[in-house]
Structures are given as C-alpha cells and as structure tokens.
C-alpha cells in the first residue's frame, strides 16, 4: 500500500481521508444511534437513578452488585449455558444437514429441505416462544408424542420444572438457530470447488474424510459467522425467554436481557440495569472478539 501511494504523489487527498468522507454518513448514524446510547448507558451505570427524578452518584457500586448478587450473576451464567443450545448444537447439526442436502440428487428435494429448515428463522422469537409454551405444556404436543410412543413416564411439564426449564428454553433457541446455520453453511459449501471432492473420491476418501479435510476447512469463514451470530443471540437473548417463562420457575431461566428490562422498567433501578447491560456487553465482546481472531485470523 505504501509503495503505491508514493508512486502517485499528486493525489489531492490521501486515500484514508477520502474513504472517511464516504464513510461519514454511516459513521454519523453509528455514532448517534449506537455509540451515544452506549456512552449514556455507561454514564447511567454510575448512578442510583429511578429513570425520572434526581439521581445520586454511586461510582462503581452498581457493578459490585452485579457481580455479588446471585440473581444477577446467575442470569449471566444461564446465558452462557444457553450457548450450547443456541450455538454449538445448531452448528454441528447444521453442518451435517448441509452436507447431506448438498449430496441430495433431486433438486426439488434440496429446495424443499432448505425451505423447511429455514422457516423457523422467519418466525419472530416472541411468537416462537408462545407456540413452544403450548407445545411444551403438560398436555402439549411434546408430551402427547411421548405418551403415544409409550414414554408417558418421561412426560414432564418442561417449562414448569426448575430442573428442565433452562434446557427447554434452549430447545426453542436451537429450533430458531438451526435454519440460519444450515442456510449459511450451504451457501459456503456451494463455494467450495467441486473438483476437490471428485479428486478426493478418486483417491478413495470417504464421506467423513471429505467432511473433515475439504468441507470443514472450506467453511471456516461461514462457521465463524455462525458462531458469532448465535453466541450473541444466546448471550443477549430476551424474546424467547420473556415470552415462554419470564425467567421462571424461580429464577431458573433468568437471562441478563430479561433482567435488565425488569430492573430498568419494573423496579425503576436504571443505574443497576445499565451496569448489568454494560457487564453483558463487555462479556459478549470478550467472547466474540477472540473467536473472530481464531476463525479469521490466519489465512
């Protein structure tokens, strides 16, 4: 880059400045609607404030509460647990499904499978939360199925039992994320050179070998995107939990998203809610940042 710049010294403005000019409108929006609210949230987090009346400066007290109140840090732990359902399982299963779809002979079948798998993604999380609440109820579809195949003893009030509720919420999340992962991974597979597979088959490499040596390395970028998006949606989940359990029974499914909303708007502790939100943001960055590096860092 530097050499090219030095050979054309007559450029009126440096490339960087021109690029910035083009970026300016978007940057302005970004600053007003993203950076400014973030800065405000950080500011609020240092106060004890009910959202309306006068506030008192409390320094880092709110952060102390976030990390010592078991209800608050517990909600953060729940959201990390949800990563298993929101991210890991959908990506692993998504990979297998994407490869299977790729191998399908019938074009119609391929299209049909893709549409079916992607459909849940079109449904808003809130609506999915309500629908699954019915399906997971005592007399809901899930238990009906279990009873129909003679597993009546395993039937459960899935969302109404502290031992199963977080997993049940996780299943809803898995159902929502799977389609997204499949479609993204499929598009990635389409970009892998077919001749690689042919060559591998000629050399006698089986299905699993092809998966690990051609498909997986070829999908590195897509997997990175999948991981990033799904982990963020796990850590920042709100709609699914709010609609299905509101954090209960007890506090077994409480996640930071719902907790922040509740603290700020029901309990009118805007300062504490902001502190939890900031803590969550930092945690998301700490998880997603290194991940980006891991997946995209080395070419």
């Amino acid at each position: 880059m530097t050499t090219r710049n030095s050979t054309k010294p007559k450029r009126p403005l440096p490339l960087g400045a021109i690029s910035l000019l083009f970026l300016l409108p978007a940057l302005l929006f970004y600053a007003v609607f993203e950076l400014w609210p973030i800065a405000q949230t950080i500011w609020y987090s240092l106060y004890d404030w009910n959202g309306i009346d006068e506030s008192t400066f409390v320094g880092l007290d709110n952060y102390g509460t976030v990390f010592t109140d078991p209800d608050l840090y517990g909600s953060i732990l729940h959201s990390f647990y949800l990563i298993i359902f929101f991210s890991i399982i959908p990506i692993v299963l998504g990979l297998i499904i994407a490869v299977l779809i790729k191998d399908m002979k019938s074009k119609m079948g391929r299209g049909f499978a893709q549409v079916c798998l992607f459909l849940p993604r079109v449904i808003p999380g809130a609506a999915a939360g309500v629908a699954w609440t019915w399906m997971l109820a005592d007399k809901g579809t899930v238990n009906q199925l279990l009873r129909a195949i003679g597993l009546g003893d395993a039937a459960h009030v899935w969302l109404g039992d502290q031992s199963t509720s977080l997993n049940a919420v996780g299943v809803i999340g898995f159902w929502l994320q799977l389609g997204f992962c499949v479609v993204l991974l499929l598009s990635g597979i389409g970009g892998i050179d077919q001749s690689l597979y042919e060559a591998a088959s000629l050399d006698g490499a089986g299905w699993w070998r092809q998966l690990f040596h051609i498909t997986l390395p070829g999908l590195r970028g897509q997997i990175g995107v999948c991981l990033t998006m799904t982990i963020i949606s796990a850590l920042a989940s709100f709609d699914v939990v709010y609609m299905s359990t509101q954090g209960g029974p007890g506090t077994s499914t409480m996640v930071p998203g719902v907790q922040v909303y509740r603290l700020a708007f029901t309990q009118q502790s805007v300062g504490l809610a902001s502190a939890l939100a900031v803590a969550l943001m930092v945690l998301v960055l700490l998880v997603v940042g290194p991940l980006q590096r891991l997946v995209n860092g080395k070419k």
Partner: protein
Amino acid sequence: MKIGKSIKTIVAGAMAMACLASMAACGPGSSSSQSNATSEPVSTDLGNENIELKLWDGAGLKTFDDQLIEAFQKKYPNITIKATYDPDNTSAQNGPRIISAADTPDIARITDINSAVRGKHLVNLDDYAKAYKWNLPESQTEVYQVDSSGKIGSGSLYAVPDGVSMTGLYWNRKVAKELGITEAPTTVEQLEADMKKASDAGVLAMMMPAKEGGTSYIYQALLTNYEGRDAVQDWILQKSGATFATEGAVKAAKQIKSWQDAGYFSKDALALDGSTALSRFCNGEALFFPSGSWYSASINDALGDDAGWVAFPGESTGKESAAANAVTAFGIPANAKHKNAAAAFLNFLQSEEARQIAVDNGYPPVGEGDVPSTDNQLLMQVLMSYENLVKTGNTTDFINNATAGIQSSAIIPGFQSLLDGTMTSKQFVDSIQKQYEKETK
C-alpha cells in the same frame, strides 16, 4: 490499515468526549420538567369555556373509561376528554414516565404512588376533597394518602379510585354438587375438607396459575388470617418496622405447600398462566379458583348459575378477607394544564351514575351507598361480599403492590420455588422480605 486506524481513533475520541461531557454535567434526571406546572386557584366552577382534557389509562379498561367519559361529557358539555391507552402489560412500566412528562395528561392512572408523590409529580387533592365534600371509605383511599414525610397510609389525598378490584374464591356449584358439597366454605378448615373431597374423587381441587403469581391471592388471605389485617396492610404501606418475616407468613406458606403436596393443584401449575387457568375453570375442570372480581363476567358467561363466588374464608365464620384496590386510581399530574376540570372528573367518579357504570363493567363501585343493580348473578355475589367486607374493614391492598418490583422479582419466582420445593417456607418468606428491603432501602 490506515482507515481502520483512523476510525478507531475517531471512535475512541468520540467515546472519550461523550464520557467527559456527561461526567462533567450533573447526574441524569432532574426536576426541570416541572417548570411548566401551572397553578390555578382551586374551584368547582368550570365556566363555559371549551376545555379539552387528556386522560391516560390501561387498554383493558377502555370500555369502562369510554362510558365514564361519555356520561361526564353529557354533564359538562364544554369539556371534552380525549383518552389514550397503553397495553395493560406495559402501563406499569410507562406510568411513571407519563405522569412526569412535560406534556402529561390531565387525568392519569397512577401506577406507583410512592415514586409519584416522592417525585412531586401529583397534585394534592385535599382542597378539591373539601370543595366537593368527598366522602369515600377509608379502606378505599388509604393507599392514596401520603403524609408530609412521604409515608403512605394517611395524610393528603393524591388519587381517586373509579371502582374496586378484589380477590375472592370462585367455585363451581355443579362440580361441588357432584361431590356432595352444597355450601361454599366459610372457614379454611371447610375449604381444606372440600378440597380433600375433590382430590379423593379425582377432581382438580383448585385451579392454580403459578406462572404469573396467581398463588399470592389465596396466600394473602391465609396471611391475613394468621397475622391480622393491620400487619399485612402496614407491610404493604411500607410502615417502619413492618416485616414479612413473621411466623404467620411461614405458616401460610407451609399450608400452601401442603396443598401442593396433597395434589390439590394441577401438575402444570408452575407453567399455568392466568388466562389458561380461566378457560379451564370455565370448562368445568376444577372445584375452586382463587382469583379476582375481574373475571366475573367471563365466568358468569361460561358457567351461568353454576358459577359461585365467596370471600376468602377466615379461621372462623365471619372473618372473611380480601385484597382490594382501585381498578384505576386516577390522579392529576403536577404538569396538567386543566386541574380544576380534571378534579371535576374525579368528583364525577364518585357519583351514582359512575357507580352504576362501574357495576355495569363488572366492578364493585367506590363509596358506600346502595349497591347498584346488575343482572349478572355472579357479580351480584361479588358485590354483596364486598359490601360486607367494607363494613368489617377486613380488606388490604395487594401484597403484590408493596413495591414496584416485588411481584416480578420475588413473589412470582418465590411461589414457584416454594411449590416445587426449591425453597423452604422460611426461605420463601425471607426472599420476599429481602427484595422488599432492597427496594425500600
């Protein structure tokens, strides 16, 4: 690379600037919104000038409010009221912001009287009460009175109710008859005997929607039995020294848990929400349903003459109790433009006409006069039981309203944990008191 670097610098710079700017200024929130509060001398004379009032309430009450407004406008032709409604599940969240806004409505639902009065967002109604000679029973206005030190329970009046919401026990006469039960229980002992009978016969004894905190109504009745009406009300009103951590509270919790263990509630109680519970009860799927007057129209429609209502039984006959408060408590925000006209509406809420409208909409009326007529037999039972309770004074506000966050942060999760055994009765009681102390400081 270059672009990346310069963006980073700019972003960092902007962040730093923003932080600095805000740190330098004073904390968020101030009392500046009160600058446009106008004061007009208190008067009951509204003149002939055309006045447009704004009213704000929850969406579920639109029919009720529209009828009140229509009748009021007929009485005062120069006043029109424009009403806006927020969805019921968000009105509590929006309430504090709406009454403190610069362009606040003239008449507004008061969702949290504590913060409203403490923040000086409401007009003191004492002068209007004197001018109009308001005479509401103490039990209906107690929670809207605040003294000069900001304590609720006595002092100046800040809001007027338009009707009453009360808790009580629905029972299905048809199901009861099949079990050989002909009378509604009047003591807790009878209630427990009836539930046992139902349970032994394989009938669901009590519809219990614990997903959204429906357990608290019957629990509060037991609590009132064991601790007395005043102790419960003092705790709700945040009187100093009041505590939830009492033996009576633990005893009531143990009793609820024993009902759960005896199988009196449905297996999915913890995942059961209020509206599903209602539809199941209307379907004849349970003997008892502890709930509130707000469902009387739906249950009367579904069960007809089989629908019964009885006040929550006490330890002995005649000691019935209920949690009761306003359907909507209307107050006048300090920033309201037409305070006298708004007060005329609050005065109208106490008229015979408005009391009839309240009953027509399924709510016991405010005041103490004769019970207005209704052809809903179930509502009639509700009205009669409320009339008795006003006489004995054995009503409290809802424990769910003790603080703004107690319902969602302690009562709902607490009852769920109590029922499924994650918390002992003592832990449950302590968890409620802990959240209460967190919010009242």
